[in-house]
């Protein structure tokens, strides 16, 4: 694996039957590429949380994953209501998800904290009424 691999997925809002398909696909690709299981796990968890967030909160968006020998970069861009107070949204336990989402097992307010916890670099930018962009990186340590 010397060249960059770019994977791109569209995420539909409110489609819970397909929610997680992109993350599942990325996880399989990384496994096939022989990436260390601990790294795969970090990517899978942070990306899955991000994908679920997009399904719950956004009006749709794009996930782009760039795999290189040094790192895995994930860029999640959505159109949506945006986040008014990012600092508050980053607090564990804070959630604006409605009850029907909680019934699915999400909306515990752990999504953003989990993304930050499992990625090595985490950046979030949001404009109210426009949308949110999350950029995450997981580094691949040199052997």
């Amino acid at each position: 694996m010397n060249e960059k691999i770019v994977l791109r997925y569209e995420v539909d809002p409110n489609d819970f039957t397909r929610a997680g398909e992109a993350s599942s696909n990325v996880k399989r690709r990384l496994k096939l590429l022989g990436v260390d299981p601990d790294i795969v796990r970090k990517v899978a968890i942070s990306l899955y949380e991000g994908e679920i967030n997009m399904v719950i909160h956004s009006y749709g968006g794009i996930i782009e994953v760039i795999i290189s020998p040094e790192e895995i970069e994930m860029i999640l861009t959505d159109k949506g209501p945006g986040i008014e107070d990012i600092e508050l949204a980053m607090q564990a336990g804070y959630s604006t998800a409605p009850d029907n989402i909680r019934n699915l097992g999400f909306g515990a307010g752990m999504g953003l904290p989990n993304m930050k916890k499992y990625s090595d670099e985490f950046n979030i930018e949001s404009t109210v009424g426009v949308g949110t962009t999350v950029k995450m990186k997981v580094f691949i340590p040199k052997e």
Partner: protein
Amino acid sequence: MTVKEIREALGAKFICGEEFQDREVHSACGADMMSDVLAFMKEKSVLLTGLCNPQVIRTAEMMDVVCIVFVRGKMPDETMIEMAKEREIVLLSTGHRMFTACGILYEKGLRGGAPCQ
């Protein structure tokens, strides 16, 4: 502890994945909130849950869960079973409630990891 031993201890039945019953499980997590599973679960674990929807299988996939035990006799639908088969995740169903099922496995020596901060 193996999947087989978990099944026996809980008097559970296989929904799928019987061929993987000799796989080892190192820890356990009982939760209905998938976000908590994603935050705290360790690898090679068994997940006990009362939640029964496709996101349980997806979450388990992300966490490399070996086996899912549905408590209170819950049964997943065909879509979920197919998803689990594709991902080689064992599905079990037990009539025990969450507390009892977790208690039985704890008594058998299975642990859930360090306390949260």
